[in-house]
C-alpha cells in the first residue's frame, strides 16, 4: 500500500479510516509521523474551540425558561415577514413636563433595548433590561425626536452621559438651524448645574451651584422610567417581531400592539410601542411610543442618528458645560431642596431684585 493521502491521514486521526489504512499507519514510520502531527493539530484546534467559552449562566437560565414555557417559538412572538409600515403619530396634546419626561424615556430606551434575537420579542426586551447598566465611559447619542403636541417638528437631541460618574451629563436640544433651543448640564466635579433656555431668540443661562444634597440625576431618573417601560412592554403577551428588508439592510421591528386605554390610575401607561432595529449592529434606529404619564397623554417618536462611547479620561470637561455666548443673559443661584423648581426660583429672585431697584 502506498503512503497515505492527506485526507486519509485526516481520516485516521478522526477515527474514520478503514482497517487497511490503519494497518498501514501502524507499519509506516512516515505516515505514523504524519498522523501524529495531525493529531497535534487537531488537539490545538480542540483547545481553540474550548477557548470559545461556555454557555453563560444567563443564557442557560433563559433557555430553561424558554424551554419550560415554549413561548418563543409560538404565537405572535415568532418572526414573520411583513410589509413595511409607516410611522403613526397620534395627534394628542401633551404637557411640556410630560414631554420632557418622555424624552428621557426616548433617550434611554433607544440604546438600551439591545440586540434582538431571531426568536422572540420578549427575549429582546429581557436582554434590554440586562444591559441597562452595562455601559461604561461617556456615551454620546444623537437623535431626531418628535413629541406630538409639544413640537412643531422633529428636534435633534444630543445626549452626553458619563456612566462612570453619577450625575454628570448634558442634554442639548437643537433647532433645525443648529442653534441650541434648550439644554441642561451637570458636572459634580465643578459642583454646577446649568440650564439654557431660549425665549424669543434670547438665550437665558441659569448657573446653579449644586448644594450638599443629592444632585439631580436625569439619567438615573430616565433609567428608572425606561426599566418600567420595558417591563411593561415585556409583560405584554403578544409583542410582534417582524422583519423588513430595506436598502440599508434587514431591520427588525418589535411592536407592542395598540391596546384600548383603560380608566388609568397608573403613573405610566403604555398603549403602544414600536422599535425598528438594525440587524447589522442590533441598535434600535427608530422608536415610537404612546400612552399616559401622570394621566397626561403622550406620543413620541425618534430616530437614532449617531452613538459613540469613549473612556471618561478622553472626554474634555467642556463637554459637560454650557458656555454662555455674548448677549446671553446669565442668572446665578444655588440649588434648593426641590431641584425641579431651582430655575424658577432663580428667575423669580432676579425679577424681584430688578423690581426692587
Amino acid at each position, binding site marked *: 500500500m502506498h503512503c497515505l493521502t492527506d485526507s486519509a491521514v485526516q481520516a485516521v486521526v478522526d477515527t474514520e479510516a478503514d482497517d487497511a489504512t490503519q494497518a498501514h499507519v501502524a507499519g509506516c514510520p512516515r505516515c505514523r509521523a504524519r498522523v501524529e502531527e495531525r493529531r497535534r493539530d487537531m488537539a490545538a484546534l480542540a483547545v481553540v*474551540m474550548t477557548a470559545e467559552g461556555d454557555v453563560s449562566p444567563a443564557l442557560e437560565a433563559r433557555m430553561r425558561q424558554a424551554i419550560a414555557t*415554549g413561548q418563543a417559538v409560538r404565537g405572535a412572538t415568532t418572526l414573520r415577514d411583513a410589509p413595511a409600515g409607516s410611522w403613526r403619530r397620534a395627534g394628542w396634546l401633551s404637557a411640556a413636563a410630560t414631554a420632557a419626561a418622555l424624552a428621557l424615556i426616548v433617550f434611554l430606551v433607544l440604546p438600551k433595548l439591545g440586540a434582538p434575537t431571531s426568536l422572540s420579542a420578549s427575549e429582546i426586551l429581557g436582554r434590554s433590561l440586562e444591559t441597562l447598566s452595562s455601559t461604561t465611559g461617556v456615551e454620546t447619542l444623537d437623535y431626531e425626536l418628535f413629541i406630538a403636541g409639544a413640537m412643531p417638528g422633529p428636534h435633534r437631541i444630543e445626549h452626553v452621559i458619563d456612566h462612570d460618574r453619577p450625575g454628570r451629563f448634558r442634554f442639548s436640544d437643537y433647532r433645525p438651524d443648529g442653534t441650541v433651543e434648550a439644554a441642561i448640564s451637570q458636572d459634580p466635579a465643578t459642583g454646577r448645574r446649568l440650564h439654557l433656555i431660549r425665549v424669543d431668540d434670547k438665550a437665558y443661562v441659569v448657573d446653579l451651584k449644586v448644594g450638599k444634597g443629592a444632585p439631580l440625576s436625569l439619567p438615573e431618573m430616565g433609567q428608572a422610567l425606561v426599566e418600567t417601560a420595558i417591563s411593561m412592554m415585556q409583560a405584554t403577551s403578544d409583542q410582534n417581531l417582524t422583519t423588513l428588508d430595506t436598502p440599508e439592510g434587514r431591520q427588525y421591528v418589535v411592536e407592542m400592539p395598540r391596546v384600548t386605554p383603560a380608566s388609568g390610575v397608573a403613573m405610566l401607561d403604555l398603549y403602544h410601542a414600536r422599535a425598528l432595529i438594525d440587524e447589522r449592529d442590533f441598535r434600535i434606529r427608530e422608536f415610537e411610543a404612546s400612552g399616559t404619564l401622570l394621566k397626561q397623554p403622550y406620543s413620541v417618536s425618534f430616530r437614532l442618528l449617531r452613538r459613540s462611547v469613549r473612556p471618561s479620561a478622553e472626554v474634555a470637561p467642556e463637554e459637560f458645560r454650557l458656555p454662555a455666548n455674548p448677549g446671553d443673559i446669565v442668572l446665578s443661584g444655588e440649588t434648593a431642596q426641590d431641584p425641579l423648581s431651582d430655575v424658577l426660583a432663580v428667575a423669580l429672585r432676579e425679577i424681584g431684585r430688578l423690581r426692587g431697584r
Partner: protein
Amino acid sequence: MRSIEAAQVPDAPVADPASESLRLFEAHGAGVFRFCRATLGNRSDAEDIVQDTFLKLLQHLRSGGDRSNLRGWLFAVAANACRDRAKWRMRWLPWRADLDRRPVESPGESPDLGPLRAAFAALAPRDRLLLSLRAQGLSYREMAAAARVAEPSVGRLLARAVDRWKKKHIASR
C-alpha cells in the same frame, strides 16, 4: 478530542419534549455554542442561535420528529442558522479589523491562543464550519449533513481546512 467526545450523551427514551430538550441542552448546549461562536466569531450571535436551535428542537420533539440522531440534527440546524446569520451579515464578507466595532471579548483568554484564533477567524466560512463541527466531535456523516457537502468529500475538505489554518498561523508569526 477526548474531552469533547466524552461529553456526548446517548439519546435516551423521551420523557417529555421539554425535559428531553433540557437534557440535550445540558449535554450539547456548550458544544453548539462553541461551534456557533467559532463559526460566527460573535458571542451574542452565537447565543441567539443556540436559543433558536434548542427551541426548534423542542418543536421538533413535540411534533414527533425523527430522534435517531438528535446531536447531528442539532448541529445541522445550528449550521443552517449560522449560514443564514452570516448571509445577513454582509454575505460572508471577510472580517476587517478597521470595520469591526464590536467590543473586545474574552479578556481572560490565554495569550498563546490569540494567533491560533486569529488564523482560524481568517479562514473561509466553509473551512471554519468544518473545523468547528469536527472539533465538536461530529462524525463525517453528521458533518456532511450539517455542512451540506458529500460525505466522501469531508475528509479531504477537512484536511485542506486544517492545512490552510496552519499556513495562516505560520504566516502570522
